[in-house]
């Protein structure tokens, strides 16, 4: 049995995170290369959208991650709020910038896909608007945290905001079913057979896996920075090799 509480303090988590980062970084690079190869060299031309559909290999993975990161962020924020654990709150803060970046990329690649296929960069429909709200939620979370000087109070305020905003996630996900929209339905569903060629699905899933591993690596690197920033005065930080030098 692993004693998880042993790793729940910044002091023990800092070296653990540092040793895990390279594995996820290398994994992200390798799966991204494989995913791009499958998507751009193996997947056939789409019957309706020609080569333009290849945006899917970027758009769908970044969109999934934009929502997934928010849920994970809200989860850690809730844990931090419930158990008053420092590390969980730091984890939530570490995820926000990456989530915001993926949300921006989702909107950007969506606009570049919408222009040739729908004839417009943007429409104020449910899917696009709720994704834009997601970007504002990430920005609000980061702005609120940086506006409060006391880190513990900033954690609490951010956690409340993150938890309230989580209601937006099912709205984004189900928006294509609940409202009329230009946006197509879910690309992948557990309840029905995939509507796309297997090779396209493989490329998309590889890119999603790469985005996930990238996120893990970057969030762990950022949480290490946050630990240093907040615990810099602690004795164990002074004993780290990278600080002693």
């Amino acid at each position, binding site marked *: 049995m692993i004693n998880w509480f042993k790793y729940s303090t910044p002091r023990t988590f800092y070296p653990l995170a540092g040793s895990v980062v390279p594995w996820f970084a290398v994994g992200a690079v390798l799966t991204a290369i494989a995913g791009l190869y499958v998507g751009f060299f193996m997947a056939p031309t789409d019957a309706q959208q*020609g080569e333009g559909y290849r945006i899917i290999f970027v758009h769908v993975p970044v969109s999934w991650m934009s929502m997934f990161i928010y849920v994970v962020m809200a989860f850690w924020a809730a844990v931090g709020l419930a158990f008053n654990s420092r590390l969980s709150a730091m984890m939530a803060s570490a995820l926000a910038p990456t989530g915001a970046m993926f949300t921006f990329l989702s909107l950007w690649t969506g606009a570049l896909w919408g222009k040739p296929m729908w004839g417009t960069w943007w429409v104020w429909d449910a899917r696009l608007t709720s994704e834009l709200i997601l970007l504002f939620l990430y920005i609000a979370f980061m702005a609120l945290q940086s506006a409060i000087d006391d880190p513990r109070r900033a954690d609490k305020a951010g956690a409340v905001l993150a938890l309230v905003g989580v209601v937006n996630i099912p709205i984004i996900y189900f928006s294509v079913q609940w409202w009329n929209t230009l946006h197509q339905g879910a690309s992948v569903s557990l309840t029905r057979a995939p509507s796309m060629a297997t090779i396209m699905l493989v490329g998309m899933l590889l890119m999603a896996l790469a985005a996930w591993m990238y996120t893990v690596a970057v969030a762990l690197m*950022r949480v290490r920075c946050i630990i*240093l920033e907040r615990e810099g*005065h602690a004795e164990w930080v002074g004993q780290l090799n990278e600080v002693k030098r």
Partner: protein
Amino acid sequence: MGWATERGETMTWNSAAEFFAMGGYAQYVWGSVGVSAIALAVELFLLRQRRQGALLQSKHELTLERKGLNESST
């Protein structure tokens, strides 16, 4: 570049130029891929700067502490 896929069709690209043209969708496809790559690069650069700043701050606090200890011992 011309090999068979699982359906027995030949590969889409007959030349590098055709690949970069993306069937007329070049600006949209490469605009998506390019900006995504730039975003990742910017995030990694900012993260590197943040780590260097955090380490510098920790080193600073460590030297202050050592100085403090020396002063109190003398």
